[in-house]
C-alpha cells in the first residue's frame, strides 16, 4: 500500500481524497495555489506545497510544478481527482515515467476515450449500443449534409476533442446545418484546439443514465449500478440520483452486464463511467469518463463502497476481492450540487462564508470543504458543496432531502440551495418524470 499520496486537485474532492487516504493510514501531500493556502484540504494534509499563483494553468494544470512537488515530497502516487489533469493522458504518462503511480486508468485508455470518435468506435466494437451517427469525422458542409440525411434530422454536431457537455450544436433541418457546422467547428477549435467534428442523431427527450464500473489490474470488473443525471442546466449536472427512476431491475441487469463485458474486453482498470442517453427503452452510448466523477457519492450510498478507497487499492495492485454477486444496491440516494451562484440568475457569488451549518442525521452526508470564515475564491469552479441523502426508498430519500436542505446554512454568499428546495417540491421531479431538457425549461420559467 502507498506510504504517501499527492492530491493534485482542490476543493471538496481534494478533501474527499484526503479523507480516504487518512482512513487507510496513507500520508497526504496537498499541492495548492496561493489562493487556496487556507483551504481545508491544505490545513488537514500532512504536507502542503504551494505550487503557483491562482490561475489554474499556473497551478492545478501545471504538470511540471505538480511532478516537482511529488519529487521533493517523495510521494508514491498521485490522485488527480476530477477535472484539471484527471483526463490528461500526457500527465498520466508523465507520472508513470517519473516513478509515481497515477491513481486512475492507463494513459492509453484515457487517450482512447478522450477522442469521442475513437471512443464510440471502440465501444461499438465492444458491444455497447451507440447513438446513430456519422461514424467518423465530417469535414465540410457537403459531407455533413450527406451524413445528416442518412441519420435523419434533427442532428447534433459534436467536437471529437470535446466532452462534458461542451462543444455541441444542433441543427433541426438541412437549412440550419451549414451555419451550425461553421459555428461548431470554430467553437471546437477555440475551446479544444481541434476543429474536428462528427454528427449524431439528436434524441428528442432522452434521459442521461450512466453506469459506474470498477476494475482491478487483474481484469476483475464489476458494475455498481446506474446514476440518473438528467437534471442539467447548460449541460452541467445539477442533481443526480441512484438508481434511476426510469429503469427496472431487468434493464439495470442487462445494461450493467453489457457495460462489464465491454470493460473486460478493452481491459480497462480503475473506476470509469459509461454515459448513455436513454430513450424509449433504448440505451445509446455518448461517452466514457475515465476518472472519478463528481456524483460518485450516490453510488457509494447505495452500494456501501468507498470508491476513492477502491481506486487507491486497485492502483496499489490489490484485487477487488468481490464479484458482481457481492454487489447489492440498497435504497435510494440523491445528490444536490450546491454552487456559489445566485439561485435564479446563476450569477457567480464568491466571497467570505459567515455562518455555516451543515445538515445532519441518519442518511445525510455533506461533501464540502467549506467552513465558517472561509473565503470562496473567484478563480475556480463554483461548486462548493454536495449534499447527498440516502433513504430506504425514493420517497423516504426525498423527504429526507427536503428536510436536510431546510437545515443547511451557508451565509455570506449566494448559493443554489433555494433552487434545490424548489425542485424537491416540484411534482415532475417528485414523480421522476424528467428528461435532459426538463431543468432548462424549469429554470427559465422560474427566471421570469
Amino acid at each position, binding site marked *: 500500500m502507498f506510504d504517501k499520496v499527492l492530491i493534485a486537485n482542490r476543493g471538496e474532492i481534494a478533501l474527499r481524497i484526503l479523507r480516504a487516504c487518512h482512513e487507510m493510514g496513507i500520508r497526504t501531500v496537498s499541492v495548492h495555489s496561493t489562493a487556496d493556502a487556507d483551504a481545508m484540504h491544505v490545513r488537514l494534509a*500532512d504536507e*502542503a*506545497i*504551494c*505550487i*503557483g499563483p491562482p490561475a489554474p494553468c499556473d497551478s492545478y494544470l501545471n504538470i*511540471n*510544478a505538480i511532478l*516537482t512537488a511529488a519529487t521533493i515530497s517523495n510521494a508514491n502516487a498521485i490522485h488527480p481527482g476530477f477535472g484539471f489533469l484527471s483526463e490528461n493522458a500526457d500527465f498520466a504518462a508523465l507520472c508513470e515515467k*517519473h516513478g509515481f503511480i497515477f491513481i486512475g486508468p492507463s494513459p492509453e485508455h484515457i487517450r482512447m476515450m478522450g477522442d469521442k470518435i475513437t471512443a464510440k468506435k471502440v465501444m461499438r466494437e465492444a458491444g455497447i449500443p451507440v447513438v446513430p451517427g456519422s461514424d467518423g469525422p465530417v469535414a465540410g458542409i457537403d459531407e455533413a449534409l450527406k451524413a445528416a440525411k442518412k441519420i435523419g434530422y434533427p442532428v447534433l454536431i459534436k467536437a471529437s476533442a470535446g466532452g462534458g457537455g461542451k462543444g455541441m450544436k444542433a441543427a433541426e433541418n438541412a437549412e440550419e446545418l451549414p451555419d451550425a457546422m461553421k459555428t461548431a467547428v470554430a467553437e471546437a477549435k477555440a475551446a479544444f484546439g481541434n476543429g474536428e467534428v462528427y454528427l449524431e442523431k439528436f434524441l428528442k427527450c432522452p434521459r442521461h443514465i450512466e453506469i459506474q464500473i470498477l476494475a482491478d489490474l487483474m481484469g476483475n470488473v464489476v458494475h455498481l449500478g446506474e446514476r440518473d443525471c438528467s437534471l442539467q442546466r447548460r449541460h452541467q449536472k445539477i442533481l443526480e440520483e441512484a438508481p434511476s427512476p426510469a429503469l427496472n431491475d431487468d434493464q439495470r441487469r442487462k445494461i450493467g452486464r453489457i457495460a462489464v463485458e465491454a470493460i473486460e474486453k478493452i481491459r480497462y482498470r480503475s473506476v470509469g463511467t459509461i454515459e448513455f442517453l436513454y430513450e424509449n427503452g433504448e440505451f445509446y452510448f455518448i461517452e466514457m469518463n475515465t476518472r472519478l466523477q463528481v456524483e460518485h457519492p450516490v453510488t457509494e450510498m447505495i452500494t456501501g463502497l468507498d470508491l476513492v478507497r477502491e481506486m487507491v487499492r486497485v492502483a496499489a495492485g490489490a484485487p477487488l476481492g468481490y464479484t458482481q454477486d457481492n454487489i447489492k444496491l440498497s435504497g435510494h440516494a440523491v445528490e444536490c450540487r450546491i454552487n456559489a451562484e445566485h439561485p435564479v440568475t446563476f450569477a457567480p457569488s464568491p466571497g467570505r462564508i459567515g455562518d455555516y451549518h451543515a445538515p445532519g442525521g441518519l442518511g445525510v452526508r455533506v461533501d464540502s470543504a467549506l467552513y465558517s470564515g472561509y473565503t470562496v475564491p473567484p478563480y475556480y469552479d463554483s461548486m462548493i458543496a454536495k449534499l447527498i441523502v440516502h433513504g430506504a426508498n425514493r420517497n423516504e430519500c426525498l423527504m429526507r432531502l427536503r428536510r436536510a436542505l431546510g437545515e443547511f446554512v451557508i451565509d455570506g454568499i449566494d448559493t443554489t440551495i433555494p433552487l434545490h428546495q424548489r425542485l424537491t417540491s416540484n411534482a415532475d421531479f417528485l414523480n421522476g418524470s424528467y428528461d435532459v431538457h426538463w431543468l432548462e425549461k424549469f429554470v427559465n420559467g422560474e427566471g421570469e
Partner: protein
Amino acid sequence: MADKNDAPRRIDADLIRKMADLLKELGLGEIEYGEDEWHVRIAKEPPPAAAVSYHSPHSSPLAHAPGSADSARFEEANPIANHPGVIVSPMVGVVYTSDEPKAAPFVKVGDTVKEGDILLLIEAMKVFNQIKAPRSGKVIRILVSSGMPVEFGEPLLIIE
C-alpha cells in the same frame, strides 16, 4: 478545617514534581489529585496537529495547527515576506546556491549585485532555472541553503 482567612497554603513542590514525573512516565495528558479542600491538576500542553509545511526556510517539519493563524511562525515569516527587498521563488523546486556542488556560491551576504545577475538556481524536473536579480542592490540576507526544497512564493533572499 483551615480558616479561609489563613495565608495561602505552602506549595507542596514535591507533590507537584511527583505528579509531573508520573505524567511523563506514563505518557498521560492530565493528572488531577486532591483531598477535601484542595485539588491539584497538571495538564500537558496538547501538541498541535503534526503537519509539514514548506512555508518556512527550515527543513525540519513545522507544526501547522489547523484553524489558528499560527502566530509564532507568522511573526517570524512576516517581516521577511513583507520586506520590500525580498526575492521570492517563482516556482516549486530545489534550490542550489552554486553552479556545481563544490563551486563557490553565486552570491554571499554583503555582495553587491547588478540587475540580471544570477543569484540562485532552482531545479524542477531535472531542469535548472536561473533566478536572476530583478534590480541592483546589496544582498543582506540569504534565507535558503543548497539542496533545500522551496515552494512557489517562498522567500529566498533579501536585496536592499
